[in-house]
Structures are given as structure tokens and as C-alpha cells.
């Protein structure tokens, strides 16, 4: 196991190098001139040249790449071009708000989707199954935006059950006052696609030969579903959830924008609008590393769910 983890960590290096190169050249070749952006529209040529020198933009590209890599390795990204805030500070101060809503969403979705999927898989082919599936398809066809706009209007503005938007410094107040509406909206929206997906996992398993063996043993259908099918279907379910985990960092950007939650997703959106390159680059690269580490953790976890997988 330790050998496996070490090897996987080692394999991250070329991938990370690829990410760094991709981001560097994307901005280098297609991005705007940082000096121009930084100096603004009405800057003189001298001012622009000064900024150029300061950022090392007058150097050849490989020297710039070297500066870029040094920044990554030393966690020193300097400041946001617009707000002059330290990038590392942006990271650390915005992440808690994001996680306060994304982690409950992830848990709530799984807790609702797995039992619902199991239920409709059990009643497969019946009216219940078909109507739930039709509702899911219809629900998935409406943009997430509409759910937020209408949800915010109806439950926040019209009925006044929740605050329309806002955020505080207290974690508990946030979790129980400001977060519930966005969490519920997102969880309900995520329910439809996940139920549909997990139902197909359950149905795939019910067609297996070992289910026939279980029937031949004399097991009842609910027992077969609970004892045999669930354990096997959990393997793809866990895979799917592990694919969703990296989304906890920026996946909630729409909610944050709508509900004025000072999270990482909203910060990125603002940075894009302001062409604030250091923030975009730093967040992209560090979240990629986090994603890779989470994927590794998921693979290790995976070997506990599926005995056929051996980590070597």
C-alpha cells in the first residue's frame, strides 16, 4: 500500500508539470499583456515598461516560466493585481465559506440519492419508477439558474423563510441561517441526475448472474437488494462520489454569486471579470494538485470497497 501511494505521488509530477505548462502558455500565448492590464488604459509607455521590468516580462519566455515555477513552489504569488490582497490570504479566507455550503450539499445529495435510487430500482418498470424517472429528466432540463432565481425569490423574498442573502463571521450562524437555502436548492437539483445514475448502477447489478444465484438460494428480493446488489453497486457509486469531491472547492460559484457568500468560487468569478491573472493562475494550479491528491485518496478508499482491486 505504501509503495502504491509513493508511486502514485511520483506520477503526479509529470501531470502537474503538464498543468503548469498548460496554464503558463495559455496566458502567455492567448492572454492579454499583464503590464497593459495592470497599468490600465491611460498609462504611459514608461509606466508600462516599468511594470514589465518588475514582472520580468522583458525576459525570454523560459525565464518567465522559471519565475512562474518558482512562484508555485514557494507559494509566493504576490498580490492580486486589483485588490492588492495576498493571493495566499485570498485562498485561506475564502475557502471556509465555500466548504460550509459544499460539504453539506455533497453529503445531503448522496444521502437522498442512494435510497431513492434503490427504491426505484426495486420497483423497476412500474408506474412509480417511470414517473420518478420522467420527473428526473424534466427536472434536469431546467437550468440550475432557474432553480436559484425562483428559489431565492419564493423562499427568501416572497415567503421570507430564509434570508435572501448574506454571510456573517460566525460559523454556526452561517450554517444555520445563511447556508440552508443554497444547500437545499443545490441538493435538490443534484438529486435528479444522481438518482438516475445510481438507479442504472443498481439495475446493472440486478442483471448479474450472482443475483440469480441468490434467488436460487431462496433469498427474498429485498434481501437480495440489500445484501448482494447494494454492496456491488456501491463500487461505481463511490467512484462517482469521488469524482464529485473536487467540486467542493469551486463548484458552488453560482450559489456564492447569488447569495453573496464570500467563497472561493465567487472570488474566481470576480477575478475573471477583472482579468486578475495571479488569482486565477494560483487557484487553478493549487486546486489541480488538490484534485490529484483527492483522486489518489479515492483510489485507496476504493480498494476497501472492491476486494478485486489490489493496490500494487
Amino acid at each position, binding site marked *: 500500500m505504501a509503495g502504491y501511494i509513493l508511486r502514485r505521488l511520483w506520477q503526479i509530477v*509529470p*501531470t*502537474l508539470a*503538464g*498543468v503548469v505548462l*498548460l*496554464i503558463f502558455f*495559455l*496566458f502567455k500565448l*492567448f*492572454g*492579454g499583456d499583464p503590464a497593459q*492590464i495592470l497599468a490600465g488604459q491611460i498609462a504611459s509607455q514608461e509606466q508600462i515598461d516599468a511594470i514589465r521590468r518588475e514582472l520580468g516580462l522583458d525576459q525570454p519566455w523560459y525565464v518567465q516560466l522559471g519565475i512562474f515555477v518558482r512562484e508555485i513552489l514557494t507559494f509566493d504569488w504576490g498580490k492580486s493585481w486589483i485588490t492588492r490582497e495576498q493571493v495566499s490570504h485570498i485562498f485561506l479566507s475564502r475557502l471556509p465559506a465555500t466548504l460550509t455550503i459544499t460539504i453539506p450539499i455533497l453529503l445531503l445529495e448522496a444521502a437522498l440519492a442512494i435510497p431513492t435510487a434503490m427504491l426505484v430500482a426495486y420497483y423497476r418498470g412500474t408506474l412509480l419508477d417511470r414517473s420518478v424517472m420522467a420527473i428526473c*429528466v*424534466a427536472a*434536469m*432540463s*431546467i*437550468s*440550475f*439558474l*432557474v432553480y436559484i*432565481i*425562483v428559489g431565492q*425569490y419564493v423562499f427568501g*423574498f416572497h415567503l421570507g423563510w430564509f434570508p435572501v442573502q448574506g454571510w456573517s463571521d460566525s460559523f454556526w450562524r452561517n450554517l444555520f441561517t445563511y447556508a440552508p437555502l443554497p444547500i437545499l436548492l443545490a441538493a435538490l437539483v443534484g438529486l435528479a441526475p444522481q438518482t438516475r445514475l445510481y438507479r442504472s448502477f443498481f439495475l446493472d447489478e440486478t442483471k448479474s448472474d450472482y443475483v440469480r444465484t441468490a434467488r436460487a438460494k431462496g433469498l427474498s428480493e429485498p434481501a437480495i437488494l440489500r445484501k448482494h446488489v447494494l454492496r456491488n453497486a456501491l463500487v461505481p457509486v463511490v467512484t462517482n462520489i469521488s469524482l464529485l469531491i*473536487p*467540486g467542493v*472547492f*469551486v*463548484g458552488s*460559484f*453560482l450559489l456564492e*454569486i447569488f447569495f453573496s457568500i464570500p467563497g472561493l*468560487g465567487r472570488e*474566481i*468569478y470576480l*477575478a*475573471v*471579470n477583472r*482579468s486578475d*491573472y495571479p488569482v*486565477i*493562475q494560483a*487557484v*487553478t494550479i493549487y*486546486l*489541480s494538485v488538490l*484534485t*490529484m491528491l483527492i*483522486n489518489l485518496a479515492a483510489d485507496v478508499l476504493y480498494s476497501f470497497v472492491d476486494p478485486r482491486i489490489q493496490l500494487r
Partner: protein
Amino acid sequence: MAAVLDVTPENAWTALWRRLHQDRVGAVSLGIVAAYLVMILFAMAGWLAGGWSVEVGVPYANPSFLGERPNLEAALQKRSQRQGKVPDLRDIDPLAPRYDEWAKRTQELKSTEPERSLTLPWGGDRWGRDVLDKAIKGSQVSIAVGVVAALCATLIGTLLGALAGFYGRWVSDLLEWLYNVFTSIPAILLIFTLAAVLRSGPFASVFASGIWTVVIILAFTGWTGMYRLVRAEYMKHRSREYVLAAQAIGASAASRMFVHILPNVSHVILVQLSLLVVAFIKVEVVLSFLGLGVPIDMVSWGTMLAEAQNELIIGKWWQLAAATVFMAIFLTAFSMLTDSLRDALDPKLR
């Protein structure tokens, strides 16, 4: 002779057609999608919703079926127009002698502007544009973005997936590395990064008009799923006996890849393409909503929703409803069609 060799690949497509027809849900979905396509073609030709940007009604014109509803906003604007007289600058303005000429010209222009109507079939937006026309034009843009981007992503994904799956070894290693690089960046960050780069970079002006920015963003970030799928299919097929048999009779690698294997994995590609269309339309809507999608002189379901957010608070719900309904019906029908397609193409269910 031609009758023997150039038989159209009957089974694949005519059988698919037959099976889709037997499936009632599939047939209805196909009908709806076809109706949308006709609507889009008409909109592109300008026969439908050509004047979506003309301000034909009063601001927030009521829908015809709600004609009696008070329209405070339109009334307010009218009053401000009436009261808002320009202060008299005749004495100091050197251009004063030309005032009369201008007044005359304005009079002429005013007379050609048609009377703004108080109601529109499905209401009007803030500038009095017809919401129904906007929804039709918006369908054209959103669906076009989704379809074109999905085709581009499919092309990239299929080509790379075929190469990696067929050749294996270092080709596969290299492309797997590329895949890992693209998938380890969270999708939304990659999209944002591209949006940031493309809107401020040297190509910003090139892509400023039209749908190409969004298409490039979606295709560049969305090819990975198709790649994975096609690669897996090619790995499975390349050692199938029919491919070995083709190799044994001397068929070239290119022929085996694209003439022998491709038709046999085309159903997988087709289904994934349909899924991509649905996913891309949803992303386009969000991007346009955020102002990172189609340019401001175009209308899409996303830009309609962006306006609708503020309208809802003052009780003008029709633009929201129009965009939502047009989008939901299309995506539901398209998803159902994809499901039917998957069933009809599934070799196990034959």
C-alpha cells in the same frame, strides 16, 4: 455490381429508424426536436424572430392574456419622457441656427417610428422587445452553441481516443498524460481560465462577435469524456477477431481504424455526442448568464435569464418563464431521445 458493394449500411440506420418509431416516447421526442430544428432554420433564415431586437412594445409590455395588468414601469417612463425637456441653450450654443433643421429631421424620424404597443403575445422586456421573439432567437443561439461545440469536442475526443486506443504504447502514454492534465484541472476553473484569457487577450477582438468564444471554451474543456470512451472502445475492438481478420488480409492501420472499427463504435459516439449537447447547452446558459458567453448583441437563454433575475423581483415573470419553458422542453425531449437512441442502438437489446 454497385448494388452489391455500395449497399448503404442498412442495418445500422434503417433498423435504428424502425426501432425509434416503435418507441412511443422516442417518436414524440424526435418530433419535438425536429420541430425545434425547423424553428431554428426559420430563425436563421430570418423568417422567424428576425426583429427580436426591435423595441416594438412599451417597456415590460404585458402579455396579451394579462392586458389589464397595471404596468407601472411603462407609465413612469412615459412621464419622464414627457417631462424631460431639454433646457434651452439657444443663446450660448453656436450650433443654435441648426436647431430648426434638427427638429424637422426628428419630426420626420418620429413619424416613421410605429406606435409602441401596450401588450405583446408573451409580454415584453425592459426595452419593450418581444419576449417570444427573443426566446425563439435565443433557442437558435443556445442550441447552435451546444451542437457546434459538441461536434468539435466529439471530433477531438474521437480522433485522440482512436489513436490512443488503437496504437497503445507510447501514443497512448502521451495522450493519457494530456488527458490527466486536462482532467486534473477542475472543469469550471479551466472554463473560467479560458474565458479570462479569451476576453482580455490578443484574440479578444477576433472572437468578440459571434458564438466562437463559447464554442472554443466548451470544446477545449469538454473533449475528455469522449476521449476516454472512444479509447476504451478502441482498446476493446482492436483485438477483436474481425479487426485481426482485416489485418490478416492486409488492411492498413488507417483502414482498420476508420473503415472497420469506427462504424462499430459509432453508436457509442452518437449517444455521448447527444449527452454533450445537453451538457454544453446548460453550461452555455450559465456562462452567458455570467456575461462570459455569447456577446451582448446576441440573445441566448442565458442572457434572457440574466435579465429575468431582476425582472422577477418587480413581478415581471414572463421572460423567465419563456426562457425556462423553451429550454426545458427542448432538453427534456433531447434527453428522452438520447435514452431511446441508446436503447435502440444497444446491441444487447436487439
